[in-house]
C-alpha cells in the first residue's frame, strides 16, 4: 500500500480502550538459570526502591494523560514482587488505587514465587483489593526445579497454592514450563495433572526459550545442556492443548489457557497493542502510541527519581502503518485472532487492503484464516507463527 492511500484523520489515540498499569519489582532471591528478565538477586530488597516507585506513581498519576483515563488493570510483576513484605506490597497497591482512576471491576494481579508468600501476606493483599494471584510454579518436580535453578521446591509450591485459596483468591494463575532439560512428555503430563488438581482458573505454559547471556545459553554453547528433541517438545505442546481443553481451560493465547471469563485482561491489553503505563526499573510504557522504557538498573532508577529526573532510557513513536502492522503481529498471538472492527476503529485499515496478495498467499498456505470479523492463525499456523508474523511485521 502506498503512503498516499493511508487513511487520514486518525490520531494515535483513535479507538483507544482503557489502559493498564504495571509496576516492576526487579529483585529475586536468586536468579534462575534460564531467566533474562530485568531482575537482580538479593536477600532483602532495598526500601529505597519502593520509595522511588511510590514517587513515580504519584508523579505519573498527576499527568494529564493519566488523569484523563480510567485504568482497567493493575499488575505487579517482576522479578519477584513478594520478595517485599505483605504490608509494603499492600501499601503499594493502595497507593495505586488511591492515585489513579480504576474501573469498578479492575483486575489486580500480583506475581509471586512460592517460597516468598505467607498466609498473612496473602490475606493482606486480598484485603487491599488484589483479586488475582500469579504463582511462578514452573514444574511439580524437585529434580526439574533444581535443574532450572529455581529457589523453591514442589512442596512449597503446593503449600503456596493452598494458602492462596485459603486466603480468598478465586482467580489463580500458575506458570508452568515445558521443554526442560531432562524432561519427558510423561513428566510434563504429571506436572499438568498436578496443576489441574488444584483447579486453577488460569495456566501459562511456556516452552523453555534459551535466551542470550543466561547460564543456560552458556551451557548450550558448551554442549552441556541436553534439551528434549523437537518431536518430544511438539508432543508436549499437543498434550497441553488437549488436556487443558478437556479440563475446561481452553487455550486463548500462544502460551495461555483460562476458564471462561478468566483470561488475563492485563495481558490481553498488551496483545491488543493497547496503552499502558509501566513504572519501575526497566518497565516499558506505551501511551497512545508513544512507547518508552525506564532505565533497567534499580539503583540508577532510584537515584534519578531522587534527583527529580525522569528515569527514562529509550523511546519510539511509530507511524500509523507501523502501529497497524505491530497490532496485527501482536493480535495474532491470540487464538481468537485480531478483531477487524478494532483495527478499523484504530487505524482505518483492513488487513486484506493493506497486505493484499501476501495475505492471500498465507491463506492459501493454510496458515491464517480471514473471517468476516477477525484475522487469526490456523491450527497449522500457530506452531510456526513467526513464519507468518515475519511476513506481516
Amino acid at each position, binding site marked *: 500500500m502506498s503512503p498516499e492511500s493511508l487513511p487520514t484523520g486518525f490520531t494515535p489515540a483513535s479507538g483507544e480502550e482503557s489502559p*493498564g498499569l*504495571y509496576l*516492576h519489582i526487579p529483585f529475586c532471591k536468586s536468579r534462575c538459570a534460564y531467566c533474562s528478565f*530485568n531482575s537482580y538477586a538479593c536477600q532483602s530488597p532495598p526500601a529505597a526502591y519502593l520509595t522511588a516507585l511510590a514517587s513515580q506513581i504519584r508523579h505519573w498519576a498527576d499527568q494529564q494523560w493519566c488523569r484523563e483515563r480510567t485504568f482497567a488493570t493493575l499488575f505487579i510483576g517482576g522479578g519477584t514482587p513478594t520478595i517485599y513484605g505483605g504490608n509494603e506490597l499492600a501499601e503499594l497497591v493502595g497507593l495505586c488505587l488511591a492515585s489513579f482512576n480504576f474501573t469498578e471491576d479492575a483486575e489486580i494481579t500480583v506475581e509471586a514465587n512460592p517460597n516468598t508468600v505467607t498466609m498473612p501476606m496473602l490475606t493482606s493483599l486480598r484485603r487491599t483489593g488484589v483479586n488475582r494471584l500469579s504463582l511462578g510454579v514452573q514444574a511439580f518436580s524437585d529434580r526439574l526445579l533444581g535443574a532450572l535453578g529455581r529457589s523453591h521446591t514442589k512442596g512449597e509450591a503446593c503449600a503456596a497454592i493452598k494458602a492462596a485459596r485459603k486466603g480468598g483468591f478465586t482467580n489463580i494463575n500458575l506458570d508452568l514450563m515445558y521443554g526442560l532439560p531432562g524432561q519427558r512428555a510423561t513428566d510434563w503430563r504429571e506436572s499438568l495433572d498436578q496443576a489441574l488438581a488444584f483447579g486453577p482458573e488460569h495456566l501459562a505454559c*511456556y*516452552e*523453555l*526459550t534459551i535466551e542470550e547471556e543466561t547460564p543456560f545459553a552458556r551451557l548450550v554453547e558448551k554442549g552441556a545442556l541436553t534439551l528434549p528433541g*523437537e518431536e518430544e*517438545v*511438539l508432543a508436549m505442546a499437543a498434550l497441553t492443548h488437549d488436556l487443558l481443553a478437556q479440563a475446561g481451560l481452553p487455550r486463548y493465547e*500462544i*502460551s495461555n489457557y483460562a476458564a471462561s471469563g478468566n483470561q488475563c485482561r492485563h*495481558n490481553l*491489553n*498488551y*496483545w491488543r*497493542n493497547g496503552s*499502558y503505563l*509501566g513504572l519501575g526499573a*526497566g*518497565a*516499558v510504557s*506505551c501511551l497512545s502510541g508513544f*512507547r518508552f*522504557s525506564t532505565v533497567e538498573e534499580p539503583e540508577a532508577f532510584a537515584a534519578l527519581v531522587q534527583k527529580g529526573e525522569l528515569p527514562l532510557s529509550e523511546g*519510539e513513536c511509530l507511524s500509523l502503518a507501523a502501529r497497524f502492522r*505491530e497490532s496485527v*503481529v*501482536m493480535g495474532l*498471538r491470540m487464538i481468537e485472532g485480531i478483531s477487524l472492527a478494532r483495527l478499523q476503529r484504530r487505524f482505518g485499515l483492513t488487513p486484506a487492503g493493506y497486505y493484499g496478495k501476501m495475505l492471500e498467499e498465507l491463506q492459501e*498456505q493454510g*496458515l491464517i484464516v480471514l473471517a468476516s470479523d477477525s484475522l487469526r492463525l490456523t491450527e497449522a499456523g*500457530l*506452531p*510456526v*507463527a*513467526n*513464519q507468518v*508474523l*515475519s*511476513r506481516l*511485521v
Partner: protein
Amino acid sequence: MENIRNFSIIAHIDHGKSTLADRFIQLCGMVTDRQFHDQLLDSMDIERERGITIKSQAICLPYRAKNGKDYILNLVDTPGHVDFSYEVSRALASCEGALLLVDAAQGIEAQTLANLYLAMENNLEVIPVINKIDLPSADPEGVALQIEEDLGLDADHIQFCSAKTGKGVDTVLEAVVNLLPPPTGDPEKPLEALIFDAFYDPFRGTIISCRLFEGRIKAGDTILFMSNNAAYRVEEVGFFRLTREPQKELSAGQVGYIIAGIKTITDTRPGDTITLKDRPCAKPLPGFQEIKQVVFSSIYPVSTDDYETLATAIEKLTLNDASLSFQKDSSTALGFGFRCGFLGLLHLEVVQERLEREFDLSLILTVPSVNYKIFLKDGTMKEVDNPAYYPDPTTIERIEEPFIKATILIPERYMGVVMTLCMERRGENTHHHYPMPGRIEFTCEVPLAEIIYDFYDRLKSVTQGYGSFDYDLLDYRESDLVKLDILVNGERVDALSQLVHRNNARARGLHACEKLKEEIPRQMFKIAIQAAVGGNIIGRETISALRKDVLAKCYGGDISRKRKLLEKQKAGKKRMKTVGNVEIPQSAFLAVLKSDQ
C-alpha cells in the same frame, strides 16, 4: 623535483605495510593523536573488518630530513594478498622506488618474491626493510642473510625497524630520502600523466589519481584521454593528504588527483595517458599489462528490480577496481545479471561486499568457475566459463582446463602435508628445493579449478599459517570433466552447477548437498537436495519441514524487542532467492565451493 620521492611499500600479506605507513604519517605530523587510529590508510570498512589492505592508497607527506631540507614524500601503501597484485603493479608504475618489507619472524614469503619481481620489472630502486624486530621470535640477522643471498639485494641498504613500536622508523624515512632517486621529467614538455586509479564521486564525477611524468596541469586546462579522445575541462587538481587538498597546479614528478566533471564513467580507464588538448604529447605511456581474470561467477540482484542499479554499480566499481571484468548474463533461476571475471576468490568476495555496501544492493553470486576450452566433434572449439553454457555432452570431443604452476614456500616440517594437499588437488610434476636452510620451495602443476576450490584456506590450515603461495598460469590441458548439477525439490538450479573432474564428482556432489543442507533454512515443507551428473543422482540430502517457529512469550515490556526480531527475520527473507518454491539464502551459492574449516 629534487625534493620529491615517490615510493610504494610492498610485502607479503601481513608483514606490516599499513602499520609502517601509520608511523610515517605520524612522524610527518600529518595527524593529531585524536585523529589517529591503526592502519589509517585502510579506509574501507571491509579492510578494517578483515584487517587487510585491498586497495592501494596514496598519501602525500611533507618531511623535513635530518639534513634540514624539506621533502615531499608520495607514499603508496599496497595490498599483500595475491588476489590484489594488480593493485601493486599499478602503484609501482607511479613510483621510482619501493620499500620491500620482510617480517623478521616469518622471513621471505611467496609474495615477497612476487612483489620484488614486479618492482624490478618497473626498474624501481628497492630498499629492503626488516620489520617486526620487536617480536620475541624475530631473527633479523637470519632474514638479512636471506635478503642478501636469496634476493641478491644490497646488504648495506637493509633497514631494521618495528612498525609497531616505532623503533628504527625514522632511519627508514632517512633511507627513503637518501637512497631513492627523485623523479625525472620536464615540466615544460607536453603533459604526460598516467592514470593509475580512479573512483566515482556522485557530486564531482570521476576523481582520477595520476602520476605526472612530463609537463604540468592546472584548473582550466582542457585534458584529453588518449585511448578515446574524450576531452574535459579541469576543475581542480591537488594532492592526497588525509583528505584531498587542492593545489594551483601539478607538475612533472608529482602524484595527485584531477577532477574534471567527468560523468561518463567509461571515459576513464586506469592505465590510460592524459595529455593536454592544445598541446598533446607524441604517444601514450606504456600503461598496464592486460589482466587475465581467472575466476568467473555471475552476479544477480536478489530483487530483479535492482538490475539497473547493479549495472551502474558495476560500472562505477570497475573505475576503482580495474581488475574486474563484466558482461551481461542471464539465468533461468535468477533472471538478468552479469558474468564477472575476478583474480581469485577473495577478490570475488570483496567485489560482492563492496557492491552490496557501497551501492546498497543485495546480491547472489553463482558458483565460481574457471574458463574451459571445449572441443566439439564438429571440429569447433568453444570457451566456456559458465557451466550454464556447457554443451550437450554427446557433442563433446574433449575438454581442456587451465593449469597453473603453484609455488609454495614452507618450513621443511610441512613438506608432507603440503605434498598430500597437492596430490588431492590433482597436482602433477612436483618439484622442490631448499632456497634457504629449513625452508622448502615446492612447485607443482595443478588445475586452476582446484585452486579456487578453497586451496588457499586449506594451505593456511595444514601449515598452521606458515605456508605461502603464488601462482602463474601455465597452459590448457585435457581433462575428464563432467557437469555436476544441483536439483532443489526436483528443479535444476543452473546457478549451482559446476564442472568437476569425473573422479571427484561424487565427493563434490555430496559436499555440495551437505553444504546446502546447512545453508538453506528449514521451510514449511520438506526439501530434497540432489546432486546429479547427466541423469544420475549421485548425492542426496533432505531438509525436514519446519514444525516449530514461535516465540513463547510476548508481553508489554518486550513488544519492541520481539517486533525487531521479526523484522530481522523478514530482512533475512529479503536476502533469499526463491527458486521454485524454495527460498535459498544468498550465502548458499558460494558455500557450495567452500570446505569445512
